């Protein structure tokens, strides 16, 4: 049987690391805070890719590994697959999740009356909340980078939330 915990446990940890690193240790150095949060995600992704690839044949190319991230890996984490995968055939892949769980639950809809209403992205961009959201995203970016680099694919990962509640992860594979 798969061992489970309440989703709010993971969300609580995320909220805390973002707040500790951004408001505590590195209050005036957001880039350092971001790097630490990404590093935590990297370790998690590295370990998870080891676990989730256990019972399967080795990937023969980058695309196969990316597809694995979009399907099996994403399903293990979020109980859904990536909704859209694009590539420029030059080593860049865009993975879009139409309703990224950690955005809808962790930060964009706090306990305020806003729950259920559509957030205005342009207003969001100005707010502090958007900064916090950006910080949260270093964690899943780190997870993806950690997972892929453990599969032998060194890359850089960034996130784009100009289209909330959708979130796109951009993977640039290092040549």
């Amino acid at each position, binding site marked *: 049987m*798969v*061992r*489970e*915990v*309440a*989703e*709010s*446990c*993971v969300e*609580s*940890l*995320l*909220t*805390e*690391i973002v*707040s*500790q690193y951004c408001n505590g*240790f590195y209050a005036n150095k957001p880039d350092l805070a971001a790097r*630490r949060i990404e*590093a*935590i*995600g990297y*370790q*998690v992704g590295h*370990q*998870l890719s080891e*676990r989730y690839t256990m019972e399967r044949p080795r990937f023969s190319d980058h695309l196969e590994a990316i597809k694995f991230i979009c399907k099996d890996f994403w399903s*293990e*984490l979020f*109980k859904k697959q990536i909704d859209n995968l694009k590539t420029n055939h030059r080593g860049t892949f865009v993975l879009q999740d139409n309703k990224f769980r950690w955005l809808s639950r962790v930060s964009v809809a706090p306990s305020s009356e806003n729950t259920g209403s559509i957030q205005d992205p342009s207003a969001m961009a100005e707010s502090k909340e958007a900064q916090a959201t950006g910080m949260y995203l270093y964690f899943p970016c780190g997870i993806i980078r950690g997972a892929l680099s453990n599969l032998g694919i060194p890359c850089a990962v960034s996130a784009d939330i100009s289209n909330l509640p959708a979130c796109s992860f951009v993977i640039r594979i290092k040549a």
Partner: protein
Amino acid sequence: MGWWDVADLWYGGFGSVKSGIEEEWDGSWDGKWDEIGLNFVAPRSGDAIFASVERVNSELFTLTYGAIVRQLLTDLEEVEEVNKQLDQMGYNIGVRLVDEFLAKSNVSRCVDFKETTEVIAKVGFKMFLGVTASVTNWDADGTSCSLILEDNPLVDFVELPDTCQGLYYCNIISGVIRGALEMVSMKTEVSWVRDMLRGDDVFELHVKLLKQVPEEYPYKDDE
């Protein structure tokens, strides 16, 4: 006129209305009916709540926590500082989680320290971590006890290196308990007695009630 007051209903139960009254009154009543409200919503069991909340694969949680601990060790260097930081993070989480806990569990605010710790062990742990704790070692005046945890998803795969022997790896849990209790007006001190990562057979947390602020007067100091 045959009419009984609310007290009869409570004492006699629904099936034991006196026969004489039944014959005298035909059940009609033109006056106002008031809803008494059978507010018997029982507190839900930990299992029931855990089955109903959104859950995730515990590996993600376990590995995320592990990565946080390791990152904190790198950044703070001193094991003692990491212990403090984990406790603080737990405290913040406990303060936030208490509302979710009360809302989902139907537990009305517990007044009694003893009852509260039982609820934390049986319902709180189950609802969030999917495991239950037990409460033992009550002292004579009922102000301190032990929470025993035999199974703890936080430590799956974890082995402490020799360089981290002073680390209370699960210190976030003691912080959560302290924070949650403080939100229901109980100031406590929570400390580790036994730790499976240090070779003990169970995890044991000692919880000591320092001060209970009466709930009726939460803003007393401000008046």
